[in-house]
């Protein structure tokens, strides 16, 4: 364990925005009963990029699904931005996600028919924004990820890294309090992976967003504010990477 005090000193008093209390989750396939998360408790702070790393099958994606309200835990509770997700019904959960959460997935999941600007505008139109406001925010968001000049292009005309940046812009444009990323760099080369993780880091710092990233990509470790190492459904270590390896 390295010194957690130094990270607290370097950032302005981060508040806890996402809490998990004693959550467990298991899956049954026929007679086989498989426990994925074992009584897990953790706090995640706003304004930080938190990385959950671990080998595949360690339960990190399930943890992300539960923390983000996409799945329910078998037991325990999740409090996100002061809201107990377990007490929300399906509609309320969708509403909560619409207002507060952004997602970036390993596959970019962009609609082939829409250009970059439309991809970002699409979820915004369900927020009840005026078309003008949705467009303005979509443009600003694409500018922020450095795709300003390419916002008229369709996914087939964009590179993998650019597609992932569109996906980030789509999540970012809603101005979410929570941003979840699942293996955002696995499908990308080193240079593009670097760009993506830098953008995610900047979002955490610049917008005060809680960015929770799940990845087994060791290149990301040095760029996170905090790294949780997971194995077999348990958190093994919770550390702050050495400043020497962190980007500026």
């Amino acid at each position, binding site marked *: 364990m390295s010194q957690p005090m130094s990270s607290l000193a370097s950032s302005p008093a981060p508040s806890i925005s996402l809490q998990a209390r004693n959550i467990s989750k298991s899956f049954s396939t026929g007679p086989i009963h498989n426990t994925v998360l074992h009584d897990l408790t953790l706090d995640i702070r706003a304004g930080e990029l938190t990385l959950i790393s671990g080998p595949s099958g360690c339960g990190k*994606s399930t943890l992300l*699904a539960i923390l*983000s309200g996409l*799945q329910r835990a078998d037991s325990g509770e999740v409090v996100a931005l002061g809201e107990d997700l377990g007490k929300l019904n399906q*509609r309320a959960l969708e509403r909560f996600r619409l207002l507060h959460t952004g997602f970036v997935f390993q596959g970019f*999941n962009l609609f082939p*028919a829409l250009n970059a600007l439309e991809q970002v505008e699409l979820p915004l139109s369900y927020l009840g924004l005026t078309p003008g406001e949705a467009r303005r925010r979509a443009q600003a968001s694409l500018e922020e990820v450095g795709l300003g000049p390419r916002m008229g292009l369709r996914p087939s005309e964009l590179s993998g890294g650019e597609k992932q940046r569109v996906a980030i812009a789509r999540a970012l444009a809603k101005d979410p309090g929570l941003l979840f990323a699942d293996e955002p760099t696995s499908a990308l080369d080193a240079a593009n992976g670097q760009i993506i993780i830098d953008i995610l880091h900047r979002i955490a710092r610049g917008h005060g967003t809680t960015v929770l990233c799940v990845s087994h990509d060791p290149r990301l470790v040095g760029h996170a504010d905090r790294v949780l190492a997971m194995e077999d459904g348990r958190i093994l270590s919770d550390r702050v990477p050495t400043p020497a390896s962190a980007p500026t």
Partner: protein
Amino acid sequence: MVALARKTLVYEWRRFLPAIVAVGFSGLLQLLQAALVLGIFGSAAVYITGSSGDLWAGYPGTQSVNLGRSIDAGVEMRLRMDPDVTAVEPFHWVDADWRGPSDTGGVSVFVSGINARPDGLMFAHALPLSLRARLNEPDAVIVDRADLENLGVGVGDTAVINGHRVRVVGVSSGLRALGGVNVVASLATAATLDTDPSNANRMTYFVAKLRDPALATDVAARLRGDRAFGSYDVWTARDFARRSQLYWILDTGAGAGVLFLAGIVFLVGAVITSQTLIAAVIGSVREYATLNALGVGVGALRKVVMEQAFWVGALGLIGSSVLGAIALAIARARNVPVSLGPWTTAVCLLLCMSLAIVSGLAAMRSLHRADPATLLR
């Protein structure tokens, strides 16, 4: 609002093409089938629709114009007594046997004995005046161009009907009959051909013209049921024509056949369309799941699928309308009996739209696969 449904439809048109074609062909088949059936069985009422009479008086309960039995000739007076009636003329129907000059054997014919004067009501729309005038010659008959071969005659030839010699003085068009051959003659000629002695002083129908055709229903109501002239009934031309057509459609089983085929066409169209739409939904299921993860509700996603189904239906309908119009134009040019009213067209097109909507509902069900948790693997 980003028009996701329409943009996807345009961009991935190849994926949606089978559904559009399926809806289009279902529509085309329904339209042509309806047009053919209505065209063929519409000719059952050509005696009524080809004439300008507003009211028909005939034997009570007559189900189709070709099934008329004679009524008392005095009914003509009863009709003339009504102040709204401006003209009345008899229509003499004779079921007869035709023997032509060439070897065609006996042919069953329907002789229509009509008033051959230029202002006559019977076949006013179906026979040009010059042709009509030729019926005044003794023993003159007119047959339809399409029947010449069956009857084994040409214009100017003679033939024998019920033992009387007649001469073909002209050919009409659009007077084809169902279940036999139409022969048009003057009332006088028809009377000589009618060999049934019980028909003396009786007439099959009386056709009346009204001052105002809009009054037809009221006048028919007050004319019917006067027992002083024996059994007779009075119908508006519209009702009688419809009754005759329905009789043929139902009596021949064509109605059931049409419904059965319509059902098959609907089913096949719905299977192809729904499978195509389901494939389209599944092809985009990860994108839909991402939208759901971002908080776009399932209801909103369903709306996108239904909108796609609607556009598939609309494009299919445009296709079937265009192709249907072309097919009907070709059919008319080739004397194929087709007839299609606005209501029938609307029903056929509505059926196709409901096909698309039903398929959309089926495709909507596959949205349950758009579970965002499955994206986290």
